[in-house]
């Protein structure tokens, strides 16, 4: 077991109570800086809730969350975001009526306060930064397109770009490859391997093929608790994990 002190993010016996149903129950979880951790588990295991807890979307009823040696338990979403945690949602959420360029401009990491922004207008440095990130996620030719006309995969990438632009030290990704074609998934693998070099990531994912491509250590959740944690290979052969997935067919066929 790794030492808790070195962890960038640490959840201590965290608990969420949805009207009596404990979606997350006494959950302990930690990720070191620079790691790419995949969080897997059967439907309803509480994976998304864990991400919601970290970024402040859901409030916990017990336990603490420590990020970068600061207590961020139940803080407001924008405060947590400003501390350096970025969140990508399961259903891609971008600004549909704005162009790709405008989307990226909203996320561009500069001042966040209202009074600074009311006197701020688009300029050349902004354009350069936007071109750079658009290149990174392969949206360079679509800058003037309205976001609602992007393909599903492009929308996912646009949201990833929005999150990356904020330059967070920890990125939470909820099923980034959901609904993607094989080609798009392989592109995303490439993207993640690039992201991995500079940031810490927690990725919730169902696609085991994708998990194997990007992650070394996998955490498995079941009924709100941590079921197992370890190398991808070991997890696939773990009896407890196999049992947790319906039909005992094993994780690979889930």
């Amino acid at each position, binding site marked *: 077991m790794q030492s808790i002190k070195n962890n960038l993010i640490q959840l201590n016996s965290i608990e969420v109570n949805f009207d009596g149903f404990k979606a997350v129950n006494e959950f302990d979880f930690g990720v070191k800086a620079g790691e790419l951790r995949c969080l897997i588990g059967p439907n309803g295991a509480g994976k998304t809730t864990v991400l919601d807890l970290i*970024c402040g*979307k859901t409030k916990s009823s017990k336990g603490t969350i420590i990020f970068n040696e600061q207590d961020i338990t139940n803080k407001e*979403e*924008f405060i947590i*975001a*400003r501390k350096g945690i*970025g*969140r990508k*949602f399961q259903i891609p*959420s*971008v*600004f*549909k*009526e*704005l*162009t790709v360029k*405008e*989307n990226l*401009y*909203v*996320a561009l990491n500069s001042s*966040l*306060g*209202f009074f600074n*922004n*009311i*006197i*701020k*207008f*688009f300029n050349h440095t902004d354009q350069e930064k936007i071109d750079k990130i658009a290149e990174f996620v392969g949206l360079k030719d679509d800058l*003037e*397109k*309205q976001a609602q*006309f992007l393909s599903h995969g492009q929308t996912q990438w646009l*949201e990833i770009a*929005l999150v990356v632009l*904020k330059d967070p030290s920890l990125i939470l990704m909820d099923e980034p490859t959901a609904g993607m074609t094989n080609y798009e998934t392989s592109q995303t693998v490439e993207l993640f391997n690039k992201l991995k070099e500079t940031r810490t990531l927690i990725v919730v994912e169902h696609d085991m093929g994708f998990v194997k491509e990007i992650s070394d250590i996998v955490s498995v959740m079941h009924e709100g608790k941590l079921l197992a944690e370890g190398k991808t290979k070991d997890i696939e052969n773990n009896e407890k994990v196999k049992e947790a997935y319906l039909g005992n067919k094993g994780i690979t066929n889930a």
Partner: protein
Amino acid sequence: MTKINFFKNKFFLYGLFCFVLFLFPLVVDDPFYLNKISTYICFGLLAVSLSLSWGYTGILNLGNAVFFGLGSYCMAMSLKLKTDSIHTGSGGLPDFMVWNNITELPWFWEPFYSLSFGIFAGIAVPVILAIILGYFIFGGRASGVYVAIITLAAMIVIYLLIMDQQAYTGGFNGITDLSSLKFGNLKFDAYGPSAYYLIVSVMTFILFLTLVITKSRAGLIFQAIRDDENRVRFLGYNVGVYKTASLCISAGIGGVAGMLYTIVMEFASPTFMSITLSLSVVIWCAVGGRQSIFGSFVGALVITSGQGFLSESETFLHTWTLIMGMLFILSVLFLPKGLAGIFDQKRK
């Protein structure tokens, strides 16, 4: 293309529009029509105010007319204290106070002796109301239909308060018999070109101000909030502050529109903050295109002038509301983005 398309440039379009309105008195010298057009412009500015909060930020404020009404009352209070004392009792009291056996000017009327204070209050009072509303609505994370209900309810509360406190507000009759607006030797007679020029000048200022606001980064964040509030929040923006700010700007513009309206109508009435007016603004914006400031403005001009024209002609005396209703239904069915949608270049 290297050729600049002037008609795509909003600054040029706005400038041209304002210029044409400035020249209007040269063509129309009937004071009655100038006064009419002035009132339509006031309603246009009210539509601009709603377009900013509803069309840009996604706050469906059904109590939008309350800002208009409050601005109008502030101006009326100042102008009332400037009237010649034909109708006043001892100590220059407004006539309706005398009828209600008030013997001393209430403390909150005192500062309105100063016209500058009246103008300041006409903007400040609506803005303060917007801050209070914003604090509770957006602090409590109310959204969608709840925002509409709360804002509507807040407006009705203030409407009832003004109706009820007849001795201090003029109640159902409002504040009538106002003096004309005067700055030193400059007099803005409601039926003269001077008031018209004043209103077109303020309109020009507000149109360009909103254009700059919507072009700023904050304006873009407003639109982002309308599209996906949570996404904005998780990018580190304090959404509540932005929404409140949008409502405040909207309130300030609404207040200015109300003040101008009182200047041209020469009275203030509780109907200025009625549900009827508030819902009409929603229709103006919907027809003109709520996501376009200019579209909403033109929508208000077209509908209010259409109403004025139809209700005065003998043929449509009894059917004009029917025609307006049909126009509204047609625009909702076929122009979901309003009149502005026709000119909007699709960005695909």
